[in-house]
Structures are given as C-alpha cells and as structure tokens.
C-alpha cells in the first residue's frame, strides 16, 4: 500500500504527470466554460423581454385600433395619440427584428421573415389609417358644414325664404327636407337603398337648382355628396384597417418564436446535462486526485517525520562527535586509546605534549614504552588486576617521556567492554602532575615561611630551634635566641599606611638577611616581631657585637615613598643552654628581655637574665601585693596645687596617688605604678583614682570650694575600650561637678602611642566637659604635627626641663620653645617642678603663668587643702614681678643670663673637680656667649639702660678672675684657682642681679 502511494506520488510529481493533470484540468475548464456559455445563452431575461416586446406590439396595436375607432366616432378630436401609437409600433417592430441570439440562424431568418410580413401588414394598416385621417377630416368638416347649412335651410324652409319664388320654394322644401333627413340618417346607418334614394333626390334637386339657379344650394349638395361618398368609404376603411391580419400574424409569430425558444431551451438542456456530466466527471477526477494527494501527503509526512527524526539524531550525534572530538583534541589530559591487546589506536595532542611522542609515533605501539622503571612488576600487576576486576584503575605513576625525563602523572585507565562484556579497548587518561608536585612544595613552603618577607615563620623557627638546640648540646656552643621588635613601627603604619609598613618590614628583613651569616636563622613571627637565631660560638660577647651591629643596621633611615623614615629596634636575647628551657620558653624569655630593652629606652638590647626572671616573678608578687593594697584601700590621693602666679589664683589641684603601706610606710607612685603599668590592675587603680577624685571634688564643692582637679590616667587605662563609658558613668554619680572641673592628664608618650585612637577618646571626653593635659610634655619627641592633632587644652612642661633651665641654656630654650608652641596653638602651659622662687621668676619672665612645684606647695592630703588654700599667697619676689610682661625679644636677656650662669657653673665645676677648663679664650669677655650677646644684640636693644652699662664691669671682672684661674691652671697652680672661686661667684652674682634688674626695668618701662 505504501509503495503504491509512493508510486502515485512519484507519478504526480513527475513532469509528465503534472502536464497531464494540467491538460485535463484546462480542457475540462474550457469544455465547462463552453457548455456554460451554451446554456447561459438561453436567458430567461432575454426571453421575457422579447415576449414582453411582442405583447407590447400587440397591445399598442390594440390601443391604436381603439384610438382609431375613437377618432371615428369623435371620441378623440385630435390625432396626436394616434400618431404616437403608430410611432410606438414602428419602434417596437424595429426591436422585434432583433431576434434573440440563442435562436439558430435559420430560425432567426424565419422569424425575421414573418416579422417583416407583420411589419408590412402594419405599414399597410398605417397607410390605411393615414387615408382614414384625411377622409375623416373631410367628412367631419362636411358634416359640420352640412349640418350648419341644413339648419339654416330648415329655417329658410320654415320661413319660405329659400327662393323668392314661393312655388319653387315649396318645391325645394319638398325636395330638400327628405334629402337632409336622409343624409343625416345615412351618416348613422349607410346602406345601399338609402344611398340610392339620396342619389335620386340629389339628381332631382340638381335639376331643380339648375332650373331655379339656386347656387347656394349647390354647397349643400356638395357637402351632401361628400358625406354620401365618405361615410361608406370610412366605414369600409375602418373595416379594412381592422381586418388586417395582424393579430393572426402576431399569434403565428409568437408561436413560431416560442417553438424556437423551446428548441433552444432543449438544446440548452442538453448542454446543461453535458455540463453537469462534465462537472461530475471533473469533480470525480479532482476528488480522486485529492484523495491521492492526501494519502501522499500523509505518507510524506510520515516519511518526513522519520527523516527529520533521523536527521535530528544525526545532528545530535554529529554534535556529540564534535564535542567528543573537541574534548579529545583539546583536553589538557593526555588520552590514549588502545585495543584489547594494548596496542595504541589513537592518542590526543596532549599525549604528544606530555610524552613527546607524536601521534604517528605512538599509534601501533604499546604504552609500555613510557615505563620509567621506577615501579616494580608488582605495581603493574596490581594495576592490571584492578582493571580486570573493576574495569578501571586510577593512581599516580612515574613515566618516562621520549627524551628520557621522568615525570609524575595521574593516570586513569578504563576498560571498554562490548555488549557481551568482552574488553575491546582501553582508554587511558593522564595528567602531568609535575607542576602539581611543585605546587605541593610551594604549599609546604608557605606553611613554613612568612608570605611578606619570605622569612621562616614561627613553625619553621621552632623546628630550627629544636635542631639548633640539639646541635649546641653536641658542640658546646651557645644558641642566642634574639627577639627583635621594631620601635615606632606602629606610628609608620598609622601615618603612612600599611603598604608603607609592609615595605618597611621587607626592607628590614632584607637588611637582617644581609647582615647575618647563612647559617643564622631569621624568622618573622608576627607584626614587627622578628626572631634571630645565632649560634656557632660559646662567647656571649660575640653575639652582643652582632646584635649591636644589627641595631645600627636597623636604625639607618629607610626611604619609603620619597619619605625618609627612621625606626630602631629593641632586642631581647636569651641564651641556650644558659637558659635551660624549651624552645617556647626561650622565645618567651627573649621576648621579656626585649621588653626590658624597650623599658630601658629602646634602640638597645637586653640579655635575659634568669635572675631577672626571678625579678619578674617578684614583680608578679608585687602586683598581687598592690592589688591587695587596692582591695584593702591602702591607696590615698594627695593633692598638689597649680597656681596662676600672675593672677595669684589657684588654678587647680593635681591628684597624686600614694600608697600607705602598713609595713613600709608611705610609698610614692613611681615605686609601684610602673610595676602594674602593663597589667590590668592599673585600670582598676585608675578607676579608683577617678572615683576618689570625683568624690573629693564633690566634697570640696559642698564645703564651698570650687576647684578643678586633674587626675593621671595611664595609657593602658585610657585606651581601654570601656574607659569613656566608665568615666561617663562615674561622672553621672556626682551631679554637682561642673564641666571643666575634671582634667585628665595623660603622658605625652602614651598619647603618641596611638594618636588616632587617643585623640578620638579625648574628643569624646571633651564633649562631656572633661579637659586634657599632656603630661611630661617635651619628652615624647612630639612634633608640631602631633601636637596639632592632639586636642589637649593644656601642656605640662616636664619638670626635668624646668629643673635645669636656670643653668642649661638648652633646657631654657626648650621651655621657651614649648611656651611659644603653646601660644601658637592656643594651649595652656603648666610648668611642673617649680622648685624655687628663682624658677618661678624665670617662668614668669618667660611668660609661663601656671606653676606647680615645691616652690608653690608640696602634694598634701585632701584634709589640708582647705587650710592651704586659705593661707596661700605667692612668694614676695614673685609677687613683685607678676604684673610685668616681657616681649619675646627680651628672651635674649634671659637666655644670655642662663648662658652666663652655665658658663660660670661649668667652669666652677671644672675647677672644683680639677678637670680641664671647659672654655677657650676665657679672658676675652667678648668671646663668651654672654659677651657676644652683650656687645651685640644686647647693646643694640638695651645699651641705653644704665643698668645694662653697669653689667659690663662685673662681667669683665668675671673674665678677669677666670683669666687668673686659667693662668693658675697653666702654671700648674690649680689649688690656687679654687681660691678665686668665691670672688668669681661674687662677680657672677652681681652680673646676675644686674641682669635681673635690667629685666625688671625693661618690663616696667613697657
């Protein structure tokens, strides 16, 4: 069936079949069209119209007849309608001649012949009518005239006035009356008898007229004759006209036409049947063709479906093949396909890359050519056993490439079996894992080395330490475990960023490596902490030299991002086996020693001493003792006033902690606080201080004294996260305390430790009305930048500067500088350690108004404060000058005085101690610093003051005495020189007193 359909299908689609099909369709269509035209030829419309025309002709003719008769009897008085119908008939006749086209030619000819006959008959009839019209008009006219005449004659007859002759008249009346009567009667019914009677009468009258000469009667006779003549003629004409056989012709014509029409219809019917038959045939043909087409289409669809499914499948397979091919060719892994015997059938490019064998070289060979020889037969046996049993094997294997290199690979072998389970092929996939192995090593390295510097890390360090410790046990050498921490690294990180910090670390690591021997170990164990292991010598001093060298190396400036940075290192060293401990302990000890080095002052090293370790233990004991003291409330606060000397007012109180030890008595803070500085205990002590101070302020408040109190807060406490909250909480308990009444003093060094953090806390505290003072200002290398960033309101100049400023021009310069700085940054300055009135005076002269120190008051218990306040007033000398102000320019005077003092003191010291004289050109009073000032700037500024001039003499004396001392020294008479000292000091005192006077005068004048 399917084959047959396919055949049909092929027939149809073949050109011949198609042509046949088209020919059949076209010829059928032509035939159908022809047949349709044949049938459509006979249209009912045309037939009806033609019939209607025939009927109209007949009807119009009837109307014409009627009109004719109407004219005859004077019902119609004009011929317009008659003419109209004649014309109408004529026009219809013309149309009738156009016979319908569906009739056959001979039929049409026959019809036209008959139509012409009809037309001719009608024409004859019309001609008759034409004559009738004329005659009828004449008759009509004559009748009218005859009637008129007869009426007038009748009148004449009655009156007898026809003729003059009465006899003739009578005779005429006798003749005319019947004549007129007969004529009138004849009009109504013209018959032959009457005609003859009238004729006879006529002749008689004519004779009579001729005899009588009555011409007037002739007219009557004339019209009588016309009437007599035309009445029968008209009657005859009417009869003739109506007798024309038009009706018959009509009937014949119609019959003939209808016959022809039926014949035509019959013909059309035949064509119609033929049309129907052809239509049916065509329909059958088309139906069969259509069924064939549908079947063909169905089978085509099925075939198409099958084909497209196969095509899709093929596409999928092709795609898959392409994928496989791509996978095979582009795989990073080497792939080998072998047959069941292990002969290579194909390899991929990666195979060639890894093994070095090209595809051509490999095909046909056995993969055993790759064997490295590193594995024994057992290995391969196990491998094959696995493949046989499980169908695959996977593992690492060492192979040899074409060039003889041995490399590790990760190999996976899979057996491919057919449907019967028989192995047909093997597929081996392998990766060169040399790189992997390298990476493994790298990872291993990463586990032991610091990523940033490439130095060993703590793990490797510990390992090395173990090794070296064993080594030292054998060779009796020492192992130095050096713990290095960079000083100031944190600041670099903070200020320049971590990148700079990292660069610094790398640089340091490099320097360390370069300055050490190969066998020495350097490790980085965190942040800026390095550990250096040195060995090879039993001499400690050798190690110390090395360390010293390292410190120098470290302290060289480092160039980072166009900035030169200097850091230093603090190193702690522990020696093994002097310190008989394990590696961890050794490291800890070195760390402790480093810490101590930092304590000492950085940029130095410290050897761990097991005794120190004992101290540490003692320290721990002390800490617990201090803790106990806190618990037992053995601490108390002393208060040292700060006064504004210029105003004569109390500026505030600094709370200072004291330990009232029941056994040891009163202990100052510097004896116990440093011990707990790095312990959380300091925080607890600090809390106690805050609490106590606040309580005291409150109490004083209640006693009517409003005084601000400053407390010292340790760095550790200040940087504790909870510091601010605790402080705020504490403050909230003492509502009477006003803002500004509590001041916190922090060490400048502590503040610099973490300047960002510290300044943030400071700002927080300032918001709740707490002010800050930087304690020991000047000791912390603080730069302008730092000062600017620290929002402390007050700077406390470290007492060390104050203490020596009278003798040391350098210290004086610092104090002066700090004051200048404070003015510039609008900070208050408190001078600590004002021990004498002299100090006070100088400070006043320098412009420092707030003083603290023994010269004002010693720290006192809270109980004494009230009393002190009520009694205190500034010392008399200070009071003398506290209203005076010096210009900055006048500092040179002060400075010159200190220079002079310094000059004298150093000389005196040298003489007293029998040391070499410290000065050159002693006699030249112009060459000393004071002299240079005096004869230079001093003279310029103050030369006009008499006091200034008075200074010259004692100063020259000073130098003169010094000249003698020098001479004594030169002459070897040193003891004598000592004798000159009292005089020297006398002159010196005079100079100083004069300068002091000058100072007062200068200020007073302004």
């Amino acid at each position: 069936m399917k084959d047959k359909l396919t055949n049909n299908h092929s027939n149809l689609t073949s050109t011949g079949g198609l042509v046949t099909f088209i020919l059949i369709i076209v010829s059928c269509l032509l035939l159908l069209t022809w047949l349709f035209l044949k049938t459509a030829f006979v249209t009912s419309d045309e037939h009806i119209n033609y019939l209607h025309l025939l009927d109209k002709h007949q009807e119009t003719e009837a109307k014409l007849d009627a009109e004719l008769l109407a004219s005859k009897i004077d019902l119609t008085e004009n011929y317009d309608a008659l003419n109209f119908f004649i014309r109408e008939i004529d026009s219809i006749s013309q149309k009738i001649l156009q016979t319908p086209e569906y009739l056959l030619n001979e039929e049409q000819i026959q019809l036209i012949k008959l139509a012409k006959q009809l037309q001719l008959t009608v024409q004859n009839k019309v001609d008759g009518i034409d004559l009738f019209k004329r005659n009828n008009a004449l008759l009509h006219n004559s009748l009218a005239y005859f009637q008129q005449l007869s009426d007038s004659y009748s009148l004449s007859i009655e009156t007898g006035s026809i003729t003059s002759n009465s006899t003739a008249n009578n005779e005429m009346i006798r003749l005319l009356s019947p004549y007129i009567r007969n004529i009138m009667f004849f009009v109504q019914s013209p018959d032959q008898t009457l005609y003859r009677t009238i004729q006879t009468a006529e002749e008689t009258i004519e004779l009579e007229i001729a005899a009588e000469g009555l011409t007037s009667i002739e007219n009557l006779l004339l019209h009588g004759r016309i009437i007599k003549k035309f009445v029968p003629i008209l009657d005859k004409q009417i009869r003739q006209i109506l007798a024309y056989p038009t009706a018959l012709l009509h009937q014949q014509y119609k019959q003939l036409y209808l016959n022809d029409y039926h014949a035509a219809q019959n013909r059309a019917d035949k064509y119609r049947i033929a049309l129907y038959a052809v239509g049916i045939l065509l329909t059958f043909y088309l139906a069969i063709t259509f069924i064939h087409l549908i079947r063909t289409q169905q089978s085509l669809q099925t075939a198409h479906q099958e084909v497209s499914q196969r095509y899709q499948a093929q596409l999928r397979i092709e795609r898959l093949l392409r994928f496989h091919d791509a996978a095979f060719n582009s795989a990073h892994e080497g792939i080998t396909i072998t047959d069941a015997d292990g002969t290579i059938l194909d390899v991929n490019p990666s195979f060639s890359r890894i093994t070095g064998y090209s595809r051509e070289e490999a095909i046909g060979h056995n993969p055993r050519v790759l064997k490295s020889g590193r594995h024994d037969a057992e290995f391969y046996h196990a491998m094959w056993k696995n493949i046989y049993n499980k169908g695959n094997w996977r593992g690492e294997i060492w192979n040899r490439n074409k060039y003889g290199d041995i490399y590790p690979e990760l190999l996976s072998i899979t057996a491919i079996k057919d449907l019967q389970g028989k192995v047909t092929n093997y597929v081996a996939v392998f990766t060169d894992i040399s790189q992997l192995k390298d990476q493994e090593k790298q990872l291993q390295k990463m586990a032991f080395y610091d990523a940033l510097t490439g130095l060993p890390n703590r793990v490797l360090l510990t390992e090395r330490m173990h090794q070296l410790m064993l080594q030292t046990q054998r060779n009796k050498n020492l192992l130095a475990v050096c713990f290095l921490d960079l000083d100031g690294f944190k600041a670099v990180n903070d200020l320049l960023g971590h990148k700079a910090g990292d660069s610094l670390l790398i640089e340091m690591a490099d320097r360390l490596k370069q300055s050490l021997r190969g066998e020495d170990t350097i490790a980085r164990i965190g942040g800026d902490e390095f550990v250096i292991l040195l060995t090879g010598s039993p001499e400690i001093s050798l190690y110390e030299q090395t360390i010293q060298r390292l410190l120098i190396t470290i302290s060289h400036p480092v160039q980072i991002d166009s900035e030169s940075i200097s850091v230093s290192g603090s190193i702690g060293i522990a020696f093994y086996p002097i310190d008989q401990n394990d590696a961890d302990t050794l490291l800890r000890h070195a760390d402790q020693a480093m810490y101590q080095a930092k304590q000492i002052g950085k940029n130095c090293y410290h050897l761990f001493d097991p005794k120190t370790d004992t101290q540490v233990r003692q320290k721990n004991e002390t800490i617990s003792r201090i803790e106990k003291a806190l618990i037992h409330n053995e601490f108390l606060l002393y208060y040292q006033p700060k006064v504004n000397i210029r105003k004569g007012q109390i500026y505030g109180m600094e709370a200072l902690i004291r330990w009232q030890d029941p056994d040891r008595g009163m202990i100052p803070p510097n004896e116990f606080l440093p011990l707990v500085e790095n312990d959380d205990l300091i925080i607890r002590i600090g809390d106690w201080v805050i609490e106590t101070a606040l309580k005291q302020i409150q109490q004083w408040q209640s006693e009517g004294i409003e005084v601000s109190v400053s407390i010292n807060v340790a760095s550790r406490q200040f940087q504790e996260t909870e510091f601010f909250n605790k402080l705020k909480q504490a403050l909230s308990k003492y509502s009477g305390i006003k803002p500004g009444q509590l001041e916190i003093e922090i060490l400048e060094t502590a503040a610099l430790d973490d300047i960002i953090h510290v300044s943030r806390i400071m700002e927080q505290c300032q918001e709740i009305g707490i002010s800050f003072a930087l304690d020991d200002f000047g000791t912390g290398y603080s730069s302008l930048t730092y000062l600017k960033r620290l929002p402390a309101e007050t700077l406390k100049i470290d007492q060390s500067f104050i203490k020596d400023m009278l003798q040391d021009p350098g210290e004086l310069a610092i104090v002066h500088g700090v004051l200048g700085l404070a003015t510039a940054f609008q900070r208050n300055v408190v001078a600590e350690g004002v021990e004498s009135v002299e100090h006070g005076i100088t400070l006043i002269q320098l412009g420092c108004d707030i003083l603290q120190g023994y010269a004002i008051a010693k720290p006192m218990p809270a109980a004494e404060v009230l009393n002190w306040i009520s009694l205190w007033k500034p010392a008399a000398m200070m009071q003398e000058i506290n209203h005076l102000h010096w210009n900055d320019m006048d500092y040179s005077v002060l400075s010159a005085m200190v220079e002079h003092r310094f000059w004298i003191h150093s000389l005196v010291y040298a003489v007293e101690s029998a040391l070499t004289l410290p000065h050159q050109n002693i006699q030249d009073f112009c060459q000393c610093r004071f002299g240079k000032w005096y004869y230079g700037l001093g003279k310029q500024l103050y030369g006009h003051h008499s006091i200034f001039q008075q200074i010259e003499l004692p100063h020259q004396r000073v130098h003169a005495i010094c000249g003698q001392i020098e001479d004594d020294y030169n002459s070897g008479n040193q003891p004598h020189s000592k004798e000159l000292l009292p005089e020297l000091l006398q002159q010196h005192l005079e100079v100083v007193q004069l300068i002091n006077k000058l100072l007062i005068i200068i200020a007073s004048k302004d």
Partner: protein
Amino acid sequence: MKNLSRIILSSYLILTADILSAADTIVSNSPTKTEPFIFTRFDNEQMKPLPDKLVFDSKKVALGQRLFNEKKLSHDNTISCASCHDFNRGGTDRLATSVGINGAKGEFNSPTVFNSGFNFVQFWDGRAASLEEQAAGPVHNPVEMGSNWDEVVTKLRNTEYVDLFSKLYEDDITPENIVDAIAIFERTLITPSRFDQYLRGEETLSEQEKGGFQRFKEYGCSSCHQGINIGGNMFQKLGGVKNYFANQKSSIADLGRFNVTGREEDRHVFKVPGLRNVAVTPPYFHNGSIKTLEEAVKIMGEAQLGRELSVQDIKLITSFLQSLTGQWQGQTLQ
C-alpha cells in the same frame, strides 16, 4: 343620439380593446431620446397646450445649437441650418422657396423650425419620419447645403467639435451624433403663446380672437389643424373639397406626397402644417406662393372647406391665428 352612440362605443372599446382607462396617459419610455410629450388617449379636445417645460441634456442642446448654426455643414461653408430657419424670421427664411449654395433655388417653402418636434413627420411631403432624418436631408440636397456626411465629418474633425462630441458621445463625430444633437436642440424650440394660456383657462384672448377661434372650430379648420401643434399630425390633400390645382400650372413639388409613395390618392397631398407662429412665417403654402395670411385663410376656406369665407370671418380667423404667435426665450417672435 350622437352622444348616446359615443357612450356605447366607448364602453365597447374599453371592454374589448383591453384598455384600462378612458384617461389613460401615455408617456414615452425614453424621454431623452424621443418623446418628451404627454398624450392623452381618447382626447376630446382638439387643441392642446404646449408643455410647461422640457427636460433635455443641456450639453447636447448646446452642441446641437452650435451645429444648427454651423456653416461647415454645407459644401462651401456658406449655409447653416439657421440660414433657412432664422429665429429672427419666425424660424423661416420668409422666402417663397429657399436659396441653397451658389444661390440655387429650392422647390419648397422652408417651414418654421419652431415646434417642429411636434410634427408627426417632417418635410411638406412627409418623407422624413423624424427630425433626425430631416436634418440629414438639406445637407445632401444639392440645392440646399450640397454636401455629404463624409465631407461634413472630416471638416468637423479638425475643429474643437472633437472635444465637444467626445465628451457626450462614445463614438465622437458621426452623422448619427450630429443629427442627434441637432434634433435634440430642435425639440427644445417651443414657443408658448397666449393661446396656450387660454387653453389652460386664462382669459388671454380678446373677443375678436375668441370669435376667430370659434369660427376656426365651427368652419372645420380644426378638423385638420388640431393637436398640440395645431396641425402637423396628418396629411391632407390640398383642395380636398375643391380642386386647388385645377387652373394652375402644376410642378413636381405640387405632387406632394405622391412623390414619396407614388399612390394616386397621395397626389397633391401635403403634411398639414402646424399653425403656431403662422402669422410670422409668410409666405404660405408648400411653394410659398401665397403672400398673406388672409389670402391663405381665404384659399383654405374654399379649397378645403368648400366655403366662401366673409371678410369678417377672415379677419376674425386671422386675428385668432395671430394669437398663436409664441415666445422664444422670453421674446415674442416677430
């Protein structure tokens, strides 16, 4: 008695002739082509007024008018229809017989073109069944226009007529279309008169005219001169009662319709002329031999009615005939 027989006959006619109504109105099937006029069957009025208005294709009328005045229709371009049918002369040339090209003398008196559409046939002898047929006549007549259709069509082809025709006729300039346009134009040439108003019931005629009309009917003039055109709807023998040609030298033209049919009874038979505008279309009769209307009336009374009309009668009838002079485009014909 006469009335009785009339009633009986009419009843018979109504029943037998399949006529539906005694006042059946006949309207032309194609008013634009042939008859725009209305006829009444069994009309017992002798005279019919002209229609109030006519409906025609105005463009064809315009073309027809132009052709009517077109001298190119004549061989030497000297004569148009209007040459012999001058609207200023009552639609005639007022010559006894017309003058054609090269001064050729025709045999007939040209009848008026006014109201000629109402004539049942055209020419004195009725040789043209329609105006269309008539129009072709003079074109070919050697003593009239002396041309032929080929010549005329060729001449018109070279003029703007091509455009005018092509807009109105599918087949442009053809003899059929030329005569069609002329005929359509001619059918619009109707001249309503006071008499038409009188027939519609208005008192527009004077006593004298009414007297004339009375005699016109009584004496039998209206036996032939009747219908809408007061004549023009039948033939009649000139000398129907008394031989008119007895004492005359007879010409071929005098034979009348005999020339067309050859029938003895058509000797001296002419189309009865319509009498509208008769007063302004002298001279009279087929050969224009009668100069005055009075004379014509007198002759008609003798020859056709067998009456010697009195001077009074003639005067009255003539005055009636003058009331038939109508208006063309608002102007009474002169």
